[in-house]
């Protein structure tokens, strides 16, 4: 087939000594950039972009893609070890990764994250290779109505959770939605909810600020209270035996990984969505479909695997509309797009025809970058775990510093640092009252997208709400959303019926 001939040519490019070196360097740099709270793949790519003029375009894009990929792997590291999301895409990884670390299973969680990232990355690259052209057409079919239905589905996976208190979940979703409306209205441009006339609120509340506050600071406060001076984290050890054990554990989770990869890839492909919503949705779906759904949020390995497969798969997915349509699916791909324009390439429907060397060089490099990233990541796990051996008194201060730096770095406004402090205290109090934090973060991430797509649909359809169910794609999502919403109720009824039958026997 022609495609495999192209791919073989691509490998000839990406396996040249220079490009292998570039992949290894890029992945390592990305890993550390991703692990630093506040720095994500966007920053990494932006900083390196000017350096790419010294190498040919195909090597340049390979370097940028390797950093992008490495950062996706790296984001999980601080989420798991410190409970602070290393990048926005790794927010969902803290939900279960952090409890695992506290139970002394940091090594296992890190292995799970690395392997899941690898699986997600690889499955999505295969999907990309085989179906790039037809998938681009699906991306085009996604209008505002479909976007809204998809986001609604993500919400229902969180509402319809088995274990948590459904009422408290809904309260947290509502709170998150209110916070997501702060700032300038996307459609009319009018300011909304500018508390105390603080200009900082004009740009809205960044969900990274919220996540760092409730998870980072809230966590530290909670740990100080519960543990006093005793170490909060059981020091984790990492041996080859444990690595083997981890891999065997992963083997059982192929269903979750396949779901996360495919979902992540599709969500990532949609312009305006990207890896963060993909990871959250994958977490929600894994939680409501898993047999062990009740232990999600308490250190379930599936809760690490689901978002980590999805965010890596989404990072590949978001390359698809960029290459085929010239429309970036995430902030980082917008930068890559800028890079391509300056190397004299025109992204869009003609790129695959006019520049096959470039496109297939990039695709093949995604395979090599995945291998490099998983190998380097696993090799460095002992180093990361070693960081947890620090005395709690030192670690606690370090986490606080990282929270403040991570909150200040993206916007460079003290406003955000004060917000983090506020969310930290608020998050701590809510955790004491047993309110779940994940739905709050989810609502803030997806809220703006949901509002925008809802209003765009209503404007376009002139107020006809049935537009959401009349269109085949969005109708399907709406039906799934309803199912996810009712699933816990059905479960409850089925169990109730069984209980009734049991005593009669």
């Amino acid at each position, binding site marked *: 087939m022609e495609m495999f001939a192209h791919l073989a040519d691509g490998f000839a490019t990406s396996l040249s000594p220079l490009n292998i070196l570039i992949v290894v360097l890029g992945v390592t740099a990305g890993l550390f950039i991703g692990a630093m709270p506040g720095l994500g793949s966007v920053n990494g790519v932006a900083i390196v972009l000017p350096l790419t003029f010294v190498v040919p375009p195909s090597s340049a894009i390979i370097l940028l893609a390797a950093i992008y990929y490495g950062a996706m792997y790296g984001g999980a590291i601080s989420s798991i070890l410190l409970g602070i999301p290393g990048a926005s895409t790794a927010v969902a990884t803290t939900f279960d990764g952090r409890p695992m670390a506290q139970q002394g299973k940091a090594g296992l969680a890190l292995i799970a994250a690395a392997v899941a990232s690898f699986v997600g990355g690889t499955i999505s690259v295969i999907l990309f290779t085989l179906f790039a052209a037809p998938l681009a057409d699906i991306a085009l*079919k996604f209008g*505002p109505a479909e976007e809204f239905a998809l986001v609604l589905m993500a919400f229902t996976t969180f509402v319809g959770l088995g274990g948590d208190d459904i009422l408290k979940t809904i309260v947290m979703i509502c709170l998150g939605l209110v916070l997501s409306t702060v700032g300038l209205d996307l459609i*009319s441009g009018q*300011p909304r909810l500018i508390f105390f006339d603080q200009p900082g609120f004009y740009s809205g509340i960044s969900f990274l600020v919220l996540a760092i506050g409730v998870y980072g600071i809230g966590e530290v406060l909670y740990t100080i209270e519960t543990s006093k001076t005793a170490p909060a984290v059981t020091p984790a050890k990492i041996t080859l035996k444990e690595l083997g054990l981890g891999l065997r554990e992963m083997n059982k989770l192929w269903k979750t990984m396949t779901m996360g990869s495919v979902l992540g890839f599709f969500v990532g492909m949609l312009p305006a969505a990207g890896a963060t919503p993909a990871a959250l949705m994958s977490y929600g779906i894994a939680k409501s479909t898993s047999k062990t759904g009740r232990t999600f949020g308490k250190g379930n390995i599936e809760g690490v695997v689901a978002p980590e497969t999805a965010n890596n798969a989404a990072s590949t997915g978001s390359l698809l509309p960029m290459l085929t*349509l*010239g429309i970036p699916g995430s902030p980082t791909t917008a930068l890559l797009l800028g890079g391509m324009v300056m190397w004299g390439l*025109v992204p869009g*429907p003609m790129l695959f025809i006019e520049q096959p060397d470039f496109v297939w060089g990039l695709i093949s490099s995604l395979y090599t970058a995945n291998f490099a990233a998983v190998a380097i990541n696993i090799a460095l796990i002992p180093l990361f775990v070693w960081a947890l051996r620090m005395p709690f008194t030192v670690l606690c201060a370090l986490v606080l510093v990282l929270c403040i730096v991570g909150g200040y770095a993206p916007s460079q406004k003290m406003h955000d640092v004060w917000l983090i402090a506020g969310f930290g205290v608020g998050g701590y109090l809510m955790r004491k009252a047993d309110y779940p934090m994940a739905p709050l973060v989810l609502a803030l991430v997806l809220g703006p997208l949901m509002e*925008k797509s809802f209003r765009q649909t209503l404007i376009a359809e002139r107020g006809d709400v049935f537009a959401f169910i009349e269109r085949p794609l969005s109708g399907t999502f709406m039906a799934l959303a309803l199912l996810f919403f009712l699933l816990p109720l059905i479960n409850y009824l089925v169990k109730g019926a069984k209980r009734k039958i049991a005593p009669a026997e």
Partner: protein
Amino acid sequence: MNNTFTRRVALAVAASAALISATTTSALAQDWKPIKPIEMVIMAGQGGGADRLARLFQSMIQRENLSNMPILPVNKGGGSGAEALRYLKDKEGDAYVLMATLNSYYTTPLRTDIGVDIAEFTPIARMAVDTFVLWVSEDSGITNLDEYVAAVKAAGKDWKMGGTGTGAEDSLVTAMLEKEFGLEMTYVPFEGGGEVAKSLIGGHIDSTVNNPSEQMGFYNAGKAIPIAAFTPERVAAFPETPTMIELGHDLVYAMQRSFVAPKDMPPEAVAYYTEMFTKLNALPDWQKYTVDEALEADFLTGDDLQAYFLEERAKHEALLKAMDEQAS
């Protein structure tokens, strides 16, 4: 005696100190260089015309080493650029923020209550004037203006025109079209021109007035059809596409692509950035790009640029007023 001596010494010291400080400040002014990365705020979402152009400038500046510090583009497209305008206002006196503008630079502060007066900002350079073209998708089967007008008339309010932001350029051009042809359509706002382009091809909207660079990829693939241009002359990239004027309709509208800085940016920094963009304007690569992407490179700086901004703002105020009257 002793007293006068000390006084004289003191005077001399003071004078020489003043001299030294004077020479050092002027030397500083000439040699002012950024010592940290420069933020380039983009008033629009990703993938649109403003975004692509800003990122192109960023890459050219870095490739040609026109700035010794990296330039970091940041999209703040929310609320037709209100987010970016507000951000720039809060950066008063900052030497490390530039903003890439489009016409919503005038319209957004006029339309919304965000407390921004663009006369306060520091003009840096106008790089180009961009053109507007009326587009439909290939699937619509429409090939000329008469067919277009007939189709919109038949569809009425069911005809969806997509554009970036309410009250921004695209909606002004839409209002001009509606008025000229007695049409009524539904205007659907999006965050960036890239999203608009995709929505047109995906069939979620029926037409757009995107800038050529936003639609170029789909045009080359034969999926987007240009109907007419809102330019005085035919656009070089689309020699087959008539202008509205040729077709007997006096509809002309253009978009400025400029850079501005916060209020009270230090003058030495203003001088540095002005020189940077002057050099950029002279690059052959940039001149070639303007031809390829149907832009007009029309370089302007300093007070002339500020005068141009204020004149355009007055024009847009009148346009918006007419649009509101039409709507009510």
